[in-house]
């Protein structure tokens, strides 16, 4: 978690003096999983150890909470998506829950990725317009038209026998793409949409998996 430390009842904010009540849902995942009320906090955290104690993970206590920091988790780290987080136990009546508050740089970057690809699409349009306006473009177009006509290719007799379609006259369809420019913005638009979908899928899937992994770890025997 970035920013100042806080207490359980008042979790710390991303930046001092700045409250991000909704927008931080983009990169933060908060939730709870029920635990056996008979478990002491030490026992519960011991069960979570295999999830947390992976190479490069820094663990610290933050009040009654356990904070972890995974600066560069391995690809198969079960918490690879959530590189920082806090976990603590809350008791209410006879029940108890493990609460978590996790931060994901990957989710944030994935959320921002569409902007980058929209940028590439806009760059493609801008470069096309700039190139079309440059004086060289007219020269090039004139030169292209003056190019000698390409000969119509013939298939090898083997291919004729096997029935492959005859090649088209290459000089025929020259005019079709004339004004489209060198770059297409379509890929950029498509990828912007794609990463928006990947983000939504991740924002749903990753918290689901975290809950499942925490539940499974808490149900298992404590780590030795």
């Amino acid at each position, binding site marked *: 978690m970035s920013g100042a430390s806080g207490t359980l009842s008042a979790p710390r904010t991303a930046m001092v003096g700045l409250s991000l009540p909704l927008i931080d849902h983009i990169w933060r995942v908060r939730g709870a999983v029920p635990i056996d009320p008979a478990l002491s906090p030490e026992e519960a955290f011991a069960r979570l150890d295999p999830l947390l104690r992976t190479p490069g993970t820094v663990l610290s206590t933050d009040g009654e909470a356990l904070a972890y920091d995974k600066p*560069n*988790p*391995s*690809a*198969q780290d079960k918490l*690879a*998506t959530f590189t920082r987080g806090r976990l603590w136990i809350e008791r209410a009546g006879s029940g108890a829950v493990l609460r978590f508050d996790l931060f994901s740089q*990957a989710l944030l*970057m*994935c959320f921002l*990725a569409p902007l980058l*690809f929209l940028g*590439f*699409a806009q*760059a*493609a349009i801008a*470069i096309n317009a700039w190139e079309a306006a440059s004086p060289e473009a007219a020269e090039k177009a004139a030169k292209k038209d003056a190019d000698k006509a390409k000969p119509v*290719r*013939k*298939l*090898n007799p*083997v*291919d004729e026998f*096997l*029935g*492959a*379609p005859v*090649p*088209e006259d290459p000089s025929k369809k020259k005019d079709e793409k004339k004004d489209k420019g*060198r*770059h297409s913005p379509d*890929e*950029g638009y498509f*990828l912007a949409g*794609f*990463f928006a979908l*990947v983000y939504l*899928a*991740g924002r749903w*899937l*990753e918290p689901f998996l975290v809950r499942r992994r925490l539940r499974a770890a808490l149900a298992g025997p404590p780590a030795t």
Partner: protein
Amino acid sequence: MAGVQVGKRIIGADAPVTVGWENIGRVEGGPIKQFVFTYFQPAMLLLAIGFWYYAPNWLAVASTAIAIRLGWTVLLLVLEWVNPRYSSWQLTWKEFATDAFYVALGMTFLRMVDSYVGDGAIIAAVQDAFDWDKFSWFTGLPLLVQAVLISMIFDFGQYWMHRAMHNWYPLWLTHAPHHYITQLNINKGAVGNPVELFLIGLGIGGFFDFLPRAFLLAGAIGMTVGIYQHINVRFNTPRWWRYIFNTTEHHSVHHSQDYEATRSNYSGTWIIWDRIFGTCVDGEAELLGMEGGRRMDIGETMVFPFREGWRSTKAALSRRLGGGAAVQPQLEPAE
């Protein structure tokens, strides 16, 4: 670790590598699963060749190839899920999103840059400068011969570029980030510094003139053979296939944490080039990567060649200029 002698080299002394076909894993499951994962690769190659050979001209265009590629990627992702080679290579959301980012960069930014400085632009410039004609008699060859020639010529170039990357430090710096991948999944081929991806895409095929359909057929060979370099699927690959074509097994040896093992299997599609030039090691490996399997994030991948290049240059200069001060340990080209 003892390692295994292959030719004059000891493979697997630093990290575990399985050498020899008799020792690699097999598809586990019933007869249907065995059948599917034995004949999937040849069947798909034949299907792709058949399609591009007979597709009418209006269908035999680049946009069809892109659409097929997309569907094909989804199918291979399903295969990775159904029959993974190693559970330690399982695709996670984060890995998928990261890989997709590199693919996306290739489809947008890299393609835009490539149109100015890529092999197409270089070849056009050379031809303009010397008024060379293309080798146009190639178009009279049978389509499949043209397609195999395109594929093999391109792969020959890739082989030597790739080998050079593993043997010359400045080129290695561009290629090193790709070797920090710790698992193989189908989009991992796109992971790497953009400079490397640009260099590996250079080819001399553009000097020759081929029929457009032959290019599509060559693309089909690449799509149904080269793609398996980076895939987490267990196949019982037929013997003839793994003799001439590159496989995920070969490429996992190349990506192993073992230094000697990485200096093998350089080709993309035709492992036969490695056999000819004496760099082929048949086998497989699970433990991949550099520095004991440290994952390199996107930011570091983008700056790595420049950062390490700067550090090495600075260290070399301080040595030469007689500084003699403690020189920081520099990264060895331990691909």
